[in-house]
C-alpha cells in the first residue's frame, strides 16, 4: 500500500480502533511495525503501511513478527507488533523471556481478543499474558482511547523499559467512532548497545534479571494506583458499584448511568487500593470484565468482597441486554421487561466459499473419495467441513493439520487400519506453522497425503500477500517461495510431489486417488489464485440450457454460490427408487466462467452464456 498524506493534527475523524492505533503508531515515531494477519487485528498493520516513515512488514507468523519488533526495540527504536488473540500463543515463547531483558526503544504489542468469536477458533483473554509475563496491560474502551493509550503505552514502555500490551477486543478494533488526532513527533533511536548480561539470556544472565522484573512489578503496581488511566467516577445510585474495563465500561455506563464506576485503563497490575476506594462508596461491587474473571479473582484474593462471574456470563460480550437482567436479579428487582418481539425462525446463512473459489474443486473431489480421514487446518478451506462437501474432519490451530495427520496415522486403531489419512493446508498456513509439521511427517516416515492449497494469498483475512506469492505488504516484488522445491528440501520424494490445477477435476481426482494408495508422504499442490486477488482472471460466464437440464443436481454438489435451484421434482427410476430432482440456473452476473460445474454435468446442459442483445431481439 502506498503512503498517503496523513490527515493534519487536530482533525476529527471517524476511525475504527484499528485505524486509531495505526495513527498513534505513526505519531509516536515508530520505526518498525510487524504482524501476521488475523481478524480482528489485521487492519492495524494494513493502515500503518499507508503512513510514511514507518517500516511495516507481514511476517510469516506472530512469533517472528514479535521477534522483529524486539530486535528493533533492542536497536533503540520504537517498534510495534499486533496480532489476534491466538497469535500470542504462537509468539509467547519470545514474550516470556523478553520480559526479562526488557527493551530500550518502546515496544507495544496490540492483542485483539475476538470476544464473541465472530471469526476465530476459540475465545481467549489476553490479559492473562500481563500476569504471566509480568507486563502492564492497557485496555481502551473506544477508538479515541485506543489512539490515546497507544501513545501512553510507548511512553510507559520506555520509562519502565518494558514491553506494554494493548488489549483490544473486536468491539474496539472494528467499531468506528470519532477520534481527534494529534501531531507526529520524530524520534532518534538510541542505537544498539552491546550488553551481553542483558541481551543474551542464559541461565546465569536470566537469574539476575528475574529480581529486576519483580522490582519492576512493584513500580508498576504503584503506577497503576496513581495512573490517570484508572478513573473513579462517583455516582448517586450506590447500591452497586462497578469495576470495569474496555467496551464493558461503555455498556455499564449505558445501563447504569448513576452508579459509581472504577474504570480500569491500566488494568494490570490491578490497582487494589483504588478498588478498595470504590468498594467503600457502595453496598456491593460487581466486576464487569470480558472474558475471564481476572480482576475479580485478584480482588477476591486481596480480601475484597466483589461479585463478577458469579452473576455474569463467562463467555461472550457483556452487552446491555446481558448486564441489565443480571443486575436486576442481584438487586431482587423485577427483570426489566424489554419490549422485544421474539426472533422469527429463518434458515441459517453460514459463510460460503466465493463463486469459483479454487478450493471448490478440491472439496468436491474429496467428497467423492471414500475411506478418508481428513485433517484440516485454518483458512477459507476450513469451510470444506460444511455443506455440500462435508470433507474436513479436524481443525485445531494453524499448522496443526500436519502433526494431527501424523498422529492419526501412528495412532490408528484396528478399525481404521484401511483408512487413508489426508491433510489439507493453505499456503499461508503452511508457511506460518505447517512446514515444521511436514518435516516431522517426513522424518518420522508417516503415511500421509498432503493437499497444499496454494491460492497465492491469505484468503481468509482479505487476500494479503505472503512469501508464497512474491509480493510484500507494499505490493513490491519480493522473493517467491517455490513450494514444490521447499517440500522436496524437507525430504518429500520428488516423484511424490505433484502440482495440479484445481479446476481440472479428473486430474485432481486421479492424482489424489493414486497418491493415497502410496504408503508414504505425498504432497499435491494446487496452483490457482484466490478469486478476490488481482492474480485471478475472470472468464466468460456459463448458463444452463433449461431444456437440457435433467435436474440431477450434480452441479450443486460443487458448492458454487452462483448456482441456484429453479424448481424441484421427483422421478421414479426403473428400479422403482424415487429420486429428488433439482433443476438449476446460473447467476451469470457473478459466474466467472471457472468451468467447474460443467464437469459433472452429464447431459452438457451448462454452456457459455450468450447475452441476448436488444438489437438481436428486434432482428429476430
Amino acid at each position: 500500500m502506498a503512503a498517503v498524506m496523513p490527515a493534519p493534527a487536530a482533525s476529527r475523524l471517524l476511525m475504527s480502533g484499528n485505524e486509531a492505533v495505526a495513527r498513534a503508531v505513526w505519531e509516536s515515531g515508530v520505526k518498525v511495525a510487524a504482524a501476521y494477519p488475523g481478524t480482528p487485528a489485521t487492519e492495524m498493520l494494513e493502515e500503518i503501511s499507508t503512513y510514511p516513515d514507518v517500516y511495516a512488514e507481514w511476517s510469516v507468523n506472530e512469533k517472528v513478527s514479535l521477534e522483529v519488533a524486539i530486535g528493533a526495540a533492542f536497536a533503540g527504536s520504537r517498534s510495534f507488533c499486533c496480532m489476534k488473540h491466538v497469535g500470542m500463543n504462537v509468539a509467547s515463547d519470545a514474550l516470556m523471556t523478553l520480559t526479562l531483558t526488557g527493551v530500550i526503544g518502546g515496544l507495544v504489542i496490540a492483542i485483539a481478543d475476538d470476544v464473541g468469536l465472530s471469526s476465530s477458533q476459540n475465545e481467549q483473554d489476553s490479559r492473562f499474558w500481563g500476569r504471566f509475563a509480568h507486563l502492564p496491560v492497557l485496555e481502551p474502551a473506544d477508538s479515541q482511547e485506543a489512539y490515546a493509550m497507544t501513545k501512553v503505552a510507548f511512553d510507559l514502555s520506555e520509562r519502565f523499559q518494558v514491553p506494554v500490551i494493548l488489549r483490544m477486543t473486536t468491539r474496539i478494533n472494528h467499531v468506528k467512532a470519532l477520534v481527534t488526532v494529534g501531531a507526529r513527533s520524530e524520534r532518534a533511536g538510541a542505537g544498539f548497545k552491546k550488553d551481553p548480561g542483558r541481551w543474551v539470556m542464559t541461565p546465569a544472565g536470566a537469574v539476575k534479571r528475574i529480581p529486576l522484573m519483580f522490582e519492576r512489578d512493584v513500580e508498576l503496581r504503584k503506577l497503576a494506583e496513581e495512573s490517570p488511566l484508572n478513573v473513579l467516577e462517583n455516582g448517586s445510585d450506590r447500591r452497586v458499584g462497578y469495576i470495569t474495563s474496555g467496551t464493558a465500561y461503555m455498556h455499564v455506563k449505558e445501563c447504569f448511568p448513576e452508579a459509581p464506576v472504577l474504570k480500569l485503563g491500566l488494568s494490570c497490575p490491578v490497582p487494589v487500593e483504588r478498588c478498595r476506594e470504590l468498594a467503600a462508596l457502595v453496598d456491593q461491587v460487581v466486576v464487569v470484565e470480558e472474558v475471564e474473571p481476572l480482576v475479580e479473582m485478584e480482588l477476591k484474593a486481596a480480601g475484597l468482597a466483589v461479585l463478577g462471574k458469579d452473576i455474569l456470563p463467562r463467555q461472550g460480550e457483556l452487552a446491555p441486554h446481558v448486564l441489565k437482567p443480571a443486575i436486576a436479579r442481584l438487586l431482587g428487582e423485577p427483570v426489566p421487561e424489554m419490549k422485544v418481539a421474539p426472533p422469527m425462525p429463518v434458515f441459517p446463512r453460514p459463510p460460503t466459499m466465493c463463486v469459483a473459489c479454487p478450493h471448490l474443486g478440491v472439496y468436491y473431489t474429496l467428497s467423492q473419495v471414500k475411506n478418508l480421514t481428513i485433517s484440516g487446518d485454518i483458512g477459507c478451506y476450513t469451510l470444506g467441513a460444511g455443506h455440500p462437501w462435508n470433507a474436513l474432519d479436524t481443525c485445531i490451530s494453524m499448522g496443526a493439520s500436519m502433526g494431527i495427520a501424523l498422529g492419526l496415522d501412528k495412532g490408528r486403531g484396528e478399525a481404521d487400519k484401511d483408512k487413508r489419512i489426508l491433510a489439507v493446508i493453505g499456503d499461508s498456513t503452511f508457511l506460518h506453522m505447517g512446514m515444521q509439521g511436514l518435516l516431522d511427517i517426513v522424518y518420522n516416515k508417516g503415511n500421509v497425503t498432503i493437499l497444499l492449497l496454494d491460492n497465492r494469498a491469505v484468503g481468509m483475512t482479505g487476500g494479503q500477500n505472503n512469501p508464497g506469492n512474491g509480493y510484500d505488504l507494499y505490493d513490491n516484488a519480493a522473493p517467491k517461495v517455490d513450494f514444490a522445491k521447499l517440500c522436496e528440501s524437507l525430504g518429500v520424494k520428488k516423484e511424490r510431489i505433484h502440482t495440479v490445477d484445481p479446476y481440472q477435476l479428473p486430474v485432481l481426482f486421479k492424482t489424489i486417488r493414486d497418491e493415497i494408495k502410496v504408503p508414504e508422504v505425498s504432497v499435491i499442490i494446487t496452483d490457482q489464485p484466490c478469486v478476490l486477488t488481482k492474480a485471478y482472471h475472470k472468464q466468460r460466464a456459463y448458463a444452463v440450457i433449461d431444456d437440457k437440464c435433467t435436474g440431477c443436481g450434480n452441479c450443486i454438489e460443487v458448492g458454487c454460490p452462483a448456482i441456484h435451484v429453479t424448481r424441484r421434482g421427483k422421478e421414479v427410476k426403473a428400479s422403482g427408487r424415487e429420486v429428488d430432482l433439482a433443476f438449476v440456473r446460473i447467476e451469470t452476473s457473478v459466474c466467472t466462467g471457472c468451468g467447474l460445474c460443467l464437469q459433472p454435468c452429464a447431459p452438457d446442459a451448462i454452456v457459455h452464456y450468450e447475452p441476448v442483445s436488444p438489437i438481436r431481439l428486434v432482428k429476430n
Partner: protein
Amino acid sequence: MHSTTNILVVGIGGQGVMTATEILAEAAIALGHDAKKTEVAGMAQRGGVVSSHLRFGKKVLSPQITPGTADVLLGFEAAEGMRWRHMLRPEGIALMNTARLVPPVVELGLYDYPEDPIAAMKAAGTRVIAFDATTIALDLGDIRLGNTVMLGAIADHLPFSADVLQECVLQRFRRKGEQVVDQNRRAFEAGRAAVGEAQMAAA
C-alpha cells in the same frame, strides 16, 4: 428517553451493508452528532449474515443496539429482515428491499426460504415499507446503484434532512465524475420516492 438514534442495517456479505452504514454515520457526524458504528459480521466477505449497528446522538456509549430498541431497520435482503426484526422497538419501522438472495444451504434442500418474508414480518406485527431496490437500480441502468437507492430509501426516516445524507452519498462519487454523481443523485431520489409511494399506498 430517546436521545440516541439507533439504525440497524442488515443484509449479507458483499452487499455493501457496512459502507451504507458508514455513510449514514458520516451524515450524522456532519450534523455534529457523536456516532458509533459496529458490525456483527462473521466472515462477512463470504455471503454470511451482516448486521451493522449505527448509534448517534449527543454522546454515544455502548456501540451496540440493544434488541427491541432500533428505530429503523434498513434491510438489503428480504429474509434478513425477518432475522433481525426483533431488534426494532415496537414503534420502529423496517424499510425493506424485496430482493431474495438464496444461500447454498437452501439450494441444497436443507432449509426452506420463506415464501414471503415481507408478509411474514407484517403478520408478526412489524411496520414494514417494502420496495424493489434492485429493479429500481436496473431501471436506472446499473445494478450497482442499489446501495444508493437503499440510502435514498432511509433518507426521510432520519431525524435530519435528507439533503445532508444525499450530500454524503454523492461525496463518495465525486472522484468518478459528474455523470456518476448524477446517476447516484437519481438513484437516491428514486429510493426516496419508492418509500414515499409505498407509504402513501399503505396509508
